[in-house]
């Protein structure tokens, strides 16, 4: 049987204590233990980016991270970003540019895009594309996603 482990971390700015199996991924913990289902399972192998979250300011595939590794860290999910006024312009850009179709890739995309803009506020299209390389989308052909991020970057200026 699996071992339980108590962990404590900041989740979207709020302290959180949970007991998790040592084998559990951060993705399963967020979705099944904490109940935040905005972060998606798309592949479980670090290939699609649907599970992108931020850990201490860096983006991470939650499916590749053990839940116990969240202990003591600062975790931000799409739900945290949704409540963050700084991310408003980016989210609205996704909405207005038609960058969202089925929406399954969108939470991961938005988290990754927010990270790109924060680390590189003047990112051009090529930089944005490179930054989104780990986030797969099967609906949009990426054009409107890149346009949206670019507009949030330049429009926000």
């Amino acid at each position: 049987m699996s071992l339980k482990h108590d962990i404590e971390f900041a989740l979207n700015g709020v302290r959180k204590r949970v007991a998790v199996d040592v084998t559990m991924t951060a993705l399963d913990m967020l979705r099944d233990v904490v109940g935040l289902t905005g972060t998606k399972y798309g592949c479980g192998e670090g290939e699609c980016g649907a599970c992108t979250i931020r850990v201490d300011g860096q983006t991470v595939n939650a499916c590749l991270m053990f839940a116990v590794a969240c202990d003591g860290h600062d975790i931000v999910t799409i739900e945290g970003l949704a409540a963050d006024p700084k991310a408003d312009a980016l989210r609205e850009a996704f909405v207005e540019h038609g960058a969202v179709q089925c929406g399954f890739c969108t939470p991961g995309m938005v988290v990754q895009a927010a990270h790109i803009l924060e680390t590189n506020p003047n990112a051009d299209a090529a930089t944005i594309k490179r930054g989104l390389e780990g986030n797969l989308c099967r609906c949009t052909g990426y054009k409107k996603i890149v346009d949206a991020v670019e507009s949030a970057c330049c429009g926000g200026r």
Partner: protein
Amino acid sequence: MNRETIVGTSAPRVDVRDKATGQALYAADIDLPGMLYGKVVRCWEHAHARVVRLDLSAAAKSPGVVRVLGPQDVTANRYNSSVLDLMVSEQMHDMLGDIEDQRIFTDHVKFQGDAICGIIAKSEEAAERAAAKVIVEYEPLPVYLTADASKQPDAIRFTPEKPGNLAFQLPEPMFPGHALGGGDVEAAMRDADLVVEDVFYVPKQKQCQMEPHAYIAKLDSTGRLNCWTSSQMPKLVQAKLAKLFGLPMSLVKVTPTVIGGGFGTRLGLISEPQACAMAMSVPGHAVKLLTLREEDWVISPSRHPGKYWMKIGFRKDGTPLACDARFENYKGGYYLDASGTAFTAGAWLGGMYKFPALRYKGESYFTNQGLTGAYRGYGNPQTNFVLEQLIDRACAQMGADPVEWRKQWHKGVGDDGWCPGVTYPSCALDECLDRGAAAIGWSEKRRQYAHQSGTVRRGVGVAVMNHTSGAMPMLLEHTACTVKLNEDATAEILFACSDMGQGSHTALKQIAAETLGFPFDHVQLSSGTSDVAGFDIGAHASRTIYVGGAAVKKACEDVRRQLLERAGRHLQVSPDELDIRDKRIFVKADPARAIEAETITRAGVYHFIDPATGQAGGEPGQIQGYVSFFAPHNSPPFGASFAEVEVDTETGEVRVLELVNAHDIGRAINPAAVEGQLEGGIQQGLGFVLSEEMYYDGNGRILNNSFTDYKMFGPSDMPKITTILVEDPDPVGPFGAKSVGESGLVSPVGAVANAIFNAIGIQFTEAPITPEKVLKGILEQGVRDYGSIGGAH
């Protein structure tokens, strides 16, 4: 000038804010109290085998397990997971024969991933642990991966009803000689000055929708079977589940969940039968069935791969005389929709050019590859890869310009479309070709690239396509729609067809608001659940706007008529003299004479008789509109794609620099959503032609069921994209709209292949055209200047 104010605008999508904040609930996100978890145990070792022993006893004793289910523990009824059987007439049904060849759990494994048994446990982990304890012994059977292998006389039959493992060929009574077309092909070929002919291979491409399949099922205390699913066809799933489990439809309720991409893979059933069988065994408990990505690859149907032979004859002056073709597809282990692609691949062929003689044969053979079924384009990209390359081969040899040749010989208004007798009501393909050519700089670049030197070569190519708007007349085209007016004159529309993310519900709301004369925000549209929504086929065949939109429009016209009649009696004018704008009903000739729609709707609901006078306050009755709509016609869209590529002759790599997609869509109800369809289509079309294929080892086990090993175009791989919406309103479609859902991916396929031909003078007969194939081609044939081929200049 269009007089519409809502149709034709890029109204904000209704569903996207929830999606952008992570609040949209997909099936896997739904959590019900006391939920149990299901796991389907699949055969991963073999693609063809018989189960000789199944021992569930250890699994049953595993901690947390609630039930284990083998083939004996579920209904023995067979089913067909596609929905084809529900969409054809009885007469056609007879021609197809018995096509229900699937079981919930099987003892004859026909593809890797076939379902063997099921586990229900208190947690996902417990179910996984128990699954590992299931003991299955197999007797391996010979594995047939191609039609050539499975059609051998000594091959094991996949089903007794289909000799030679020929799942389907065009049926004789309907298609004499098992062929579609007409005219004397043999004689016409004899008259030809030029004949081009080749055998092609088209790939097994996967939809790769980003949301893995997920279900919840529950048998509730009233004996009703509930299923939450992201199927593209909730109403047909309801009918299928009712039949499979022998329940009246009133005891099956399907709740559609947000769809994380479909592209055809969610047409009909996938694991609904297993999820529901599990739920039936634990009444009162919801059972959640999730799918791992590596499992998703093998259990849901892919595009049909196969061998595609074609021969086309021309006169010296370019006149096409005849086309002869045969597409032999590798169906996979079960029938599903075996008649579908085998037919449509030829239908698009017949719908494209003015061949005086045409003979197309389409056949589906069972194989031990993974299932095949619907995938966006449905036979059309296969035909595009073959037909459009052969046309360009002929153009090069005849010295004809590929754009001009296509303009001269494509079918147009009044010609038979993909089905004889259903003529094209509109066609703006010439404008697509002209505007696309201008956008890519066709003439200059063709001149420039005819003669090149160096190791990196460039080319531009063109391809055209026709598609469909709904499936009339081949398949049932029926949609019911209800529109209810609330007392405050807002409208609520019930329309069962799902929005897979393409924005169809937003566009339908625009159609409704426009028709009613109500503001966009005063109209709501939902697919409801299967118990409240009327009949609808579902989202397939690019039908949602063309057929569904027409249904929504008609139901709204019904409401509008009722409103105008009541307003007319109030204003004492004939309803014909009235119009509605912003919910205000006014006399067209005297707009000051008016009544608010809300005055009518309120009086209709809150209806009282004045006790003093006995006078009624307005007319009683809540207004509802309804239609049970059958599409009267089919107005296919056309498209022209132009690609510019760069081929590195040392590495074999092909880089697509630009892709122009010019599309004759009739009318864009929501231009941004239409662009989104074309752009997304390009990504999948480029994958078909350059990078995407499911590979199997000799035993039929998949080699690349992961996003690392199956290469889709990523953001940096994508070329510069230009979409051109050619709007020439169709006389039949709602507000002039034709379809756009599938067609965007079709002609990029031929355009890229032809651009490669233009760059290095080599045609590739196997898709995807990977760097290995390019290098091999160069090694065998050598790079040739396009300008030096035949009469090309």
